[in-house]
């Protein structure tokens, strides 16, 4: 959500919005850990069986993540696996983040993920081994999964653009539809896909049985025989590409403009319906891509009879995106961090009286605090504004705020979004002026952007 800002020499380090975002996230994480510790402490105090020192031990285990595994080899192994399981999370996080950027809430990532898994697994397992090189099958499977996700993501986008149905409801419905379709398809073709060799029958055959697996480039050996493969690198590359697309291309700019203010975007001549559909389609593709990367690893079990539950990795994309304040690059780190905490939590039941749900609790609290990130940033701004407010306003406005207030009111509504309230969800735009003339925007603008005093240039100086 942060715009790459041209900070003047006068702007202090703490004023840069990227730094502030990171600082706010760190504060949130710290807060989450503190609350998690307090919960453990309370539990220990009120329970007779648990000594109080156990709480400290518990939080330290969570904090140490994979290091809690013990000997160096296990640590490496666990690190590799954590990184590998972070891959689909990065992708679903990117999916949710992209949709957020366009002002849409993609709660449909679980369904898109399932469709992606289905597409890639079917292709990977039904092309007979040896009929073509394995890497071609891999690529085809990857593309098939992603394509299916694109289609699945486009459905909520289509309903939103064409019928103006809230995307949240369509996403929720399509999640369950996807879950049933996937179960149905695999149920109907059990003998072909279901893994009957190993006594459990809940899972699809591993793609390695058909010779298809992601290249590892020795990463698995590097991490002591873990599942890690190049998928993590692919995911990172996609994140970078997405970042470039969002921030450096016209298309990305249009998507963000639609997110900031749909009416302004339309007024500026952007096809906001097309953008909504495209954004959701890409988001769906990203989530599905995560599933494909995970399934095509070759060693993973995919539970096919999933009609009563949705994959958690889809929903966990939401915290991954929120913690990174929807920055694609940030999503990489937040997803890895979430997995780190999860891994630490998974060692709790063995070592202490607590259990792995502590890590989920901590993540939840972190996200709760992430909601306040604007509040935290305002606080940081206020603190750092004091020395700066002395400097002459025009000079600062020239350096930090790209458009002086009066140009906004005249033309280029497309520029408005950048200055306008950053965190206003697009629903606002709907309710605000569904059919009011866009000429109203300047009014809202000038109201929202206070005169160029200290807070005006702080990108978060908006108030609602």
């Amino acid at each position, binding site marked *: 959500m942060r715009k790459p800002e041209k900070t003047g020499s006068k702007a202090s380090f703490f004023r840069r919005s990227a730094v502030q975002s990171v600082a706010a996230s760190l504060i949130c994480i710290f807060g989450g850990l503190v609350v998690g510790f307090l919960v453990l402490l309370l539990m220990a105090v009120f*329970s007779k069986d648990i000594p109080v020192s156990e709480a400290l031990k518990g939080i330290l285990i969570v904090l140490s993540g994979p290091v809690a595994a013990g000997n160096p080899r296990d640590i490496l192994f666990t690190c590799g696996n954590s990184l590998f399981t972070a891959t689909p999370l990065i992708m679903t996080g990117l999916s949710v983040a992209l949709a957020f950027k366009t002002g849409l809430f993609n709660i449909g990532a679980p369904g898109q993920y399932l469709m992606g898994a289905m597409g890639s697994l079917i292709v990977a397992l039904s092309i007979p081994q040896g009929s073509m090189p394995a890497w071609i099958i891999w690529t085809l499977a990857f593309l098939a999964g992603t394509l299916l996700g694109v289609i699945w993501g486009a459905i909520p986008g289509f309903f939103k653009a064409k019928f103006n149905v809230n995307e*949240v409801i369509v996403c929720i419905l399509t999640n369950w539809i996807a879950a049933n379709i996937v179960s149905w398809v695999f149920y109907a073709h059990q003998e072909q896909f279901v893994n009957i060799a190993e006594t459990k029958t809940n899972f699809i055959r591993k793609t390695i049985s058909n010779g298809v697996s992601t290249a590892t480039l020795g990463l698995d050996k590097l991490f002591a025989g873990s599942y890690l493969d190049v998928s993590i690198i692919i995911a990172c590359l996609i994140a970078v590409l997405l970042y470039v697309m969002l921030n450096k291309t016209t298309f990305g700019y249009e998507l963000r403009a639609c997110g900031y203010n749909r009416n302004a975007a339309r007024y500026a001549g952007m096809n906001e319906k097309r953008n909504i559909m495209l954004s959701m389609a890409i988001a769906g593709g990203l989530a599905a891509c995560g599933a494909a990367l995970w399934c095509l690893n070759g060693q993973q079990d995919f539970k096919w009879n999933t009609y009563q539950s949705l994959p958690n990795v889809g929903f966990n994309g939401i915290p991954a995106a929120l913690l990174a304040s929807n920055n694609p690059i940030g999503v990489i780190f937040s997803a890895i961090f979430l997995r780190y905490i999860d891994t630490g939590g998974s060692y709790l039941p063995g070592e202490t009286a607590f259990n792995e749900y502590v890590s*989920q609790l901590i993540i*939840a609290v972190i996200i709760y605090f992430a*909601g306040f990130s604007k509040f935290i940033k305002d606080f940081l701004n206020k603190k750092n504004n004091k020395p700066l407010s002395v400097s002459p306003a025009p000079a600062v406005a020239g350096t930090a705020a790209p458009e002086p207030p009066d140009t906004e009111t005249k033309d280029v509504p497309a520029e408005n979004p950048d200055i306008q309230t950053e965190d206003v969800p697009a629903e*606002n735009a709907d309710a605000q002026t569904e059919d009011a003339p866009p000429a109203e925007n300047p009014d809202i603008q000038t109201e929202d952007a206070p005169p160029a005093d200290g807070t005006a240039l702080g990108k978060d100086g908006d108030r609602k």
Partner: protein
Amino acid sequence: MIFLLQKALIFAIPLLIVALAGMFAERSGIINIALDGIMIFGAFAGAFASFYLRRSPFFVDHNQLLFLICLLIAAVFGAVFSLLLSFSAINLKADQTIGGTALNLLAPAVTLFITKVLFNKDKLEMETALDSSGKSRDFGYAILNGELGPVGQVLFDKAYISTFLALLIFVLMSVWIYKTKTGLRLRACGEHPQAAASVGISVVRMRYLGTTISGALAGFGGYAYVATVANGTAEGTVAGMGFLAIAIMIFGNWKPLGIVFGSLLFGFLKCLAVTYNKSLIVPLESQTWMQNLLAGSEGFKAFYEAIFKNMYFYNLIPFVTVLIVLAFTSKKSRAPKAEGIPYDKGAR
């Protein structure tokens, strides 16, 4: 058929009450996407209370009373839990979606954490217990049955007491939000908070009221779900019921009557799936004529077999139906939406 309607009602009731919960929050101007989490939390609180209260023989004998108490406890805890959302959304002006998502994550984490620490299990089951006369009692069918006629059978035979309570609450709350001064004020805060504030209404208080009522209703619905649909097992999930309730609320156009229609429709379609699933009524009556109609050629028959003898198909029906109906009604329901979407926070 009667069995079907009974089942449909059991499904519809949690949806109905939780969708109403969503309506209250959104009419006051707060997006309550945390309904799922509040349901989980309320259900857990109720189940927890039930678990401990049933150790006293008095409550095992009076299981209806226990059921009511647990519903109340669930509602109270749901309301308290929703304060977290209110605080972040109203006082700190945080993004409501983020706050709601956090609560959705928090509820299963907290409940499962406590369950596992205390019972070393992943779920909390309210088992049947023996009452003073040695009879096994669960937690509450309504007492009536027998010669009631078809209507009476649907409504009273083996019905849960939560069903009536939920219907009563639903009617009362619907009247309240439309016919009382406070209800009007609450709705005003969802439509145009600045205007409401300009005539001296405390937007903050109204929004707290709306969200708290919402939390109480969602907690109630959560326990109703766990005690009826989930057979008394609280395991940190309500199978996406809270999200479905949001869908029903939007489907019902943020209006009580629409919600009634939506949840009954959904409940009915959903129970079709479940009854087929458990093969209690395997050949639905409607299927026989469809079979005759379609079985003209072998190809049709095979097709028919593949589609209609499959529980996944029946599972799909409710979701697809709601989706299609939405596509057709959204144009029509647009006018009230534009003036009534309580999304605009706009609080000053």
